[in-house]
Structure formats: structure tokens, C-alpha cells
């Protein structure tokens, strides 16, 4: 029996605390040359796709812009469009929010990216319901949390209707008869969240629709992925956790008339390489300290009680802290556990902090 083929994607390092900006080898996360280098490397290695995350609001803590990690990033569609011009085969995946955007606009953008890249576009559909992020948008915190996936489903279905409003054979361009196209693109969508109608202006793209990615790990997120996504991102690091997740999600596909291979399961993975295993372990230790400096560790902990968790990773000290989605954070959802570190992680200051009784026991 032939071995299962591995699919590989490359997450552009940027706004998260995995990225070590203080490393001597670190370059700009904004300059196009960085995106180009990363994309060309991924394509040289025959990766399936490059992946861009998204942040719709700069991270803050106590109303102050968070200043320890990489901050600031350019717009997803613009970067992917530019990368389409310097790559030939590499898939181009962007994270686009279904809560604050509109289906017509997003469908136009993805159909356009799919044309420009000759069939390499992918959309990581994320949701966000919090007013903190929503303040940047026209309607602010308009969406109750329990509706974020129902809106996402309606959003995705609406874009599918828009993509499919063109079948692909409408442009005739017959110079003899003078007929250019057979009018098409009609749509009328009336749902709980949307009431739109008109004609979709972008002809059918090479893939028809972008590849749909989904990153939610909740019950609703898994079901959402099983119903219509082409790949799901996970954070299950261990073999056993990965197998359990894999079996659970693949097992949900049949009821949607889908086969197990119709949904790819792709966990996030970091790696540290060395000439020997011992050297790799030592490098990994160094990377870990660079990622989580004493100052960052204090921010991790103090944010637990104040609401705006500044990082993408949950800490064990914040058991009730919840992520809204993607990179967005909710002040309202954060716990008031008042956790503070009992000791500086590297003991550089050697100080002790008082530990509130509400804190879970220190390990």
C-alpha cells in the first residue's frame, strides 16, 4: 500500500509571539521582499500553499498598544495579489473575516485573486463577534456571539451563490456576430443576515471558488468545517490528540454527502532543526526564551486579569480566558481572575508578586 501523501503549507511569520523579531536573522515583516522570499522558498520546496493570518485591530493592553511582539501588517488581498505575480504554482491563502465584511465584496476579491493567480486562491473563513474589533467597522459589535457561525454559514453560502452565478461559458467574444457575452450573474439572496440582489461582475474563475479553509476547533467550528470546508487548521500537537480530532472531524463528513478525503486536516507545527538532536533541543530552548521574554511573560499573566490578552497563545494561568476568533480578542470575554506571576520566569529580577487566591495553583 502506498504511503499517504503529506500536504504542507507555510504560515508567513509575523504578528504573533511565535515569531522571534529579536533574532539577528530577522528581517522586515512588511517589505514585499520578505513576502517574496518566503513565497519563493515555499514554492521551491513544492508546498501546497502559503498562508497569511489577519489582524483587524492592533493588540492592546489596558488601552495601551502592545509593544513587545511584532506589530502591524499590510492588507491580505493586496499582498496575495502581489505574490501571485512572482509565483506560478504555490497556493495563496488569506484569512478574511465573515463578521465585518460583506459577501459581495469578498466574493469579488477572491474571484479576482483566483483569476490573477490562475486558480490558486484559498480563503480562511474566520468569525469574530466582539465589539473591540468591531469598533473599526461600520456596525461595531453588532453580532451576538451565538450568531457568529450562523452568519458565517450564510456568508459562505452567499459567496458560493455569487461565484456560481457564472458557469464559465458566458463570454463568447464572437467577432463575427459581435456578441461578447450572454448576460448572466443574477443573484438574489435573502437570509437572516443578508438582503442583497443584483449581478455579480466577475466571470467564473479557474477554481470556480477559492479553496475554503476553517480554523475553528469548537463543536460549531468542526461542524462548519465538515459541512463545507476543504481544509481545517488545528492546534492539536500530540499524536493522540491529533488522531482523536482527525477521527472526529472526518466522521462528520458523511452526513453532508462528503468523503473523508474531501476535507484535509492540517495542524499548525513549529520546528527547530539541528545537526544533532541535542543541538536542536538547545536551539529550541533558545527560541523559547526569545519568544517569551520575561517582559512578555509578565504581559501574558497580567493580561489575564485585565482583559486584552496580548498573545495568540493561552496560558495555563488563564483557564477561563476565551478567544473570540482568529487574532481578535474580546475585552468583555476575559476573566477577572487577577492572575499575576509568582516569580519572574527567568528570575532576572528575582522579585515575587502576590498571588491572588483566585489563581489556579502554580505548577
Amino acid at each position, binding site marked *: 500500500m502506498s*504511503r*499517504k*501523501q*503529506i500536504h*504542507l*503549507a*507555510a504560515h*508567513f*511569520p*509575523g504578528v504573533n*509571539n*511565535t*515569531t522571534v*523579531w529579536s*533574532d539577528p536573522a*530577522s*528581517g*522586515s515583516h512588511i517589505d514585499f521582499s*520578505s513576502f517574496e*522570499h*518566503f513565497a519563493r522558498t*515555499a514554492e521551491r520546496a*513544492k508546498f*501546497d500553499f502559503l*498562508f497569511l493570518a489577519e489582524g483587524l485591530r492592533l493588540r492592546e493592553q489596558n488601552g495601551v498598544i502592545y509593544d513587545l511582539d*511584532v506589530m502591524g501588517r499590510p492588507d491580505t488581498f493586496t499582498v496575495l495579489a502581489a505574490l501571485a505575480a512572482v509565483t506560478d504554482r504555490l497556493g495563496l*491563502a488569506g484569512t478574511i473575516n465573515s463578521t465585518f465584511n460583506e459577501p459581495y465584496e469578498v466574493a469579488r476579491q477572491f474571484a479576482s485573486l483566483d483569476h490573477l493567480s*490562475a*486558480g*490558486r486562491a484559498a480563503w480562511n473563513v474566520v468569525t469574530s463577534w466582539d465589539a473591540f474589533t468591531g469598533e473599526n467597522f461600520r456596525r461595531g459589535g453588532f453580532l451576538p456571539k451565538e450568531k457568529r457561525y450562523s452568519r458565517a454559514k450564510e456568508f*459562505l453560502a452567499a459567496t458560493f451563490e455569487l461565484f*456560481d452565478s457564472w458557469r464559465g461559458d458566458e463570454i463568447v467574444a464572437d467577432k463575427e456576430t459581435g456578441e461578447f457575452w450572454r448576460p448572466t450573474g443574477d443573484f438574489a439572496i435573502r437570509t437572516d443576515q443578508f438582503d442583497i440582489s443584483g449581478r455579480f461582475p466577475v466571470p467564473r474563475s*479557474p*477554481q*470556480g471558488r477559492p479553496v475554503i479553509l476553517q480554523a475553528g476547533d469548537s463543536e460549531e467550528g468542526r461542524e462548519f468545517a465538515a459541512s463545507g470546508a*476543504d*481544509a481545517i487548521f488545528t492546534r*492539536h*500537537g500530540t499524536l493522540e490528540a*491529533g*488522531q482523536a480530532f482527525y477521527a472526529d472531524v472526518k466522521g462528520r463528513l458523511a452526513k453532508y454527502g462528503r468523503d473523508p*478525503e*474531501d476535507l*484535509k486536516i*492540517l495542524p*499548525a*507545527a*513549529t*520546528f527547530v532543526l539541528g545537526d544533532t538532536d541535542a543541538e*536542536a*533541543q538547545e536551539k*529550541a530552548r533558545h*527560541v523559547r526564551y*526569545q*519568544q*517569551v521574554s520575561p517582559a512578555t*511573560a509578565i504581559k501574558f499573566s497580567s493580561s489575564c486579569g485585565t482583559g486584552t490578552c496580548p*498573545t495568540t497563545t493561552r496560558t495555563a494561568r488563564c483557564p477561563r480566558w476565551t478567544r473570540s476568533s482568529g487574532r481578535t480578542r474580546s475585552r468583555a470575554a476575559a476573566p477577572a481572575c487577577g492572575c499575576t506571576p509568582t516569580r519572574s520566569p*527567568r528570575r532576572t529580577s528575582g522579585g515575587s508578586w502576590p498571588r491572588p487566591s483566585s489563581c489556579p495553583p*502554580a505548577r
Partner: protein
Amino acid sequence: MIIEVTGRQNFIGTPARVAEALDEFVQADASDGFVLVPHVTPGGLDEFADTVVPLLQERGVFRTEYEGTTLREHLGLKAAPTTSGTDF
């Protein structure tokens, strides 16, 4: 404690050990692949591309050339239907 909890390091070792671990993870049906998250911009993928990928290719579990042109083809997905009707 915080450093240990928050720092994720899934695959650490020589290229040969990492290639083997990635392969075993997929063959054991714990995933269909990975989204690799390097630590450094923009060269954080270079070493993996130069050392681990050739070993995966030698093991016969990763392509040596793109076979298709679209991402859907890379991922081994069926063509998208031309009519809506997905029941979300």
C-alpha cells in the same frame, strides 16, 4: 512555567528525525499534513526546504514536482461544483 506552557515546539531534531516524525504523524492518521510556522521572517523556512523536504521526497510522501496547476489539484480535492446547493 509560563515560558514552558506558551512556547510551542512540535518537531525538534535533526532533519532526518523531523522528516520521520512528520511522516509518522500523517501515516498514523493524526493529520493530512501541516501548516508550518517558522520563527523568523523571512528566512525561517529556508533550512526546512533545503533539508527536510528532500528527505520527505525520498520517503515517497511528498511531491517532487507540482502535478497540477490549481491549489485544488495540489490538495487532491474534487473540482468545485458549478451550481450552488451546499447545505450549510
